[in-house]
């Protein structure tokens, strides 16, 4: 009856702790629960990176969807209850690996499986290698390019954060354009 890892149908390797029934229960012992939250945090971020998912909502624990492979384990008949997930999300926000998005609510978070600072570098790099420096681009062109990039489908709040970070180091500038928001990337003068 050894607890083992398991590879899901989307090719994600679940850790052996995910096969342990108590892993899904919110632990009354605070020291134990701290470990549980830490493990769930790692698992959630890892899965999000694997599937390129950005949002996690408390209700994802109930409805079927993108997060099913992780939030439930049908082999042992366990699921993560919404209350427990809510507590885990709070933990992640406190650790700055997620943020409540939209602001001023606590049911939905934007996940930072890549930190905003890292996204900024990825963004700048992509603009550079695709020869789009010094040209004005719409946000849409970034999130929905003809060729898939690491930035494909990045949520706008996260994109804005990344651009703001680049602006601080003089590597991007937000431009007001006709239908919305645009941005221009450049290499800072040496």
């Amino acid at each position, binding site marked *: *009856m*050894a*607890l*083992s*890892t398991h590879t899901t149908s989307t090719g994600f390797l679940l850790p*052996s702790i995910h096969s*342990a*029934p*108590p*892993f*899904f*229960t919110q*632990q*009354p*012992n605070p*020291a*134990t629960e*701290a*470990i*549980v939250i830490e493990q769930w945090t790692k698992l959630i971020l890892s899965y999000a990176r694997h599937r390129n998912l950005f949002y996690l909502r408390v209700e994802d624990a109930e409805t079927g969807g993108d997060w099913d492979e992780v939030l439930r384990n049908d082999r042992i*008949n*366990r*699921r993560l209850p919404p209350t427990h997930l809510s507590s885990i999300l709070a933990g992640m926000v406190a650790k700055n690996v997620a943020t409540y998005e939209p602001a001023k609510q606590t049911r939905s978070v934007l996940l930072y499986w890549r930190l905003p600072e890292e996204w900024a570098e990825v963004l700048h790099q992509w603009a550079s290698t695709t020869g789009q420096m010094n040209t004005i681009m719409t946000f849409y062109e970034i999130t929905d390019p003809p060729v898939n990039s690491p930035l494909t489908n990045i949520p706008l709040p996260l994109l804005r954060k990344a651009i703001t970070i680049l602006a601080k180091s003089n590597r991007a500038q937000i431009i007001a354009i006709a239908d919305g928001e645009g941005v221009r990337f450049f290499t800072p003068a040496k």
Partner: protein
Amino acid sequence: MHRRGVGLAAFDRKQTTKRFEELSNSISQSQVTHLNNQLTQFRTALTHFASTHRDKIKSDPSFRHAFQQMCTSIGVDPLAGPRKGGWWAELLGLGDWQYELGVQIVDVCVSTRERNGGLIEMAELIRMVSKLRGVSGGSITEDDIVQSIKTLEPLGAGYQVVDISGRKMVRSVVKELDDDQTTILGLAQEHGGRVVEDMLIQRRQWSRERARTALENMLLRDGLCWLDDQDEEYGRAYWVTSAMKWEA
């Protein structure tokens, strides 16, 4: 011709003692010197043997065990001596080896303590220590762990090898498992880690209150188990982490 009695009747206790005393007095200084020389020669030979086979002692657990057995049988304690780790340790560099292993054991115990409450199964400890050491570490046996834990005693941190219903565990917190907890642990080991109140009531004839108190203490006070509140049978089950089997 001397007429000394031959045969049992002639044995006079006092006389015998006296005769032995005379004998020992007559062992001359030269004989004592000779004996010392023999011992020195022997020690030199043993030293030579040890340093020649130092690498093998470090890398081969069965050879190491045989070497330690030999030391014990001739009355040489590999860890004794005025210097840290002993004279042997210095000679073989075994002191460092033992020390390194000790540090690794502490490392594993401390990092898993929150998960298992300071009690880890010997096999699991060996597995994790081996992982830490990597391929170049050579294989580590239970015997090595036991020896190493002996050297941790002066630390006063309470590292001890304990036996719970036939399974060797290493305890790294200064807390005695009370009898009830030992019973629960034994039961947990039989069922892959899972224990419920009813098991204790039916199989050990405990009262429900005793079962509940013991389990709740393990859970809340001592952090030795995890709670599963989605248990199909009883709604509430306790999983003793140190008794659960994890695949690598």
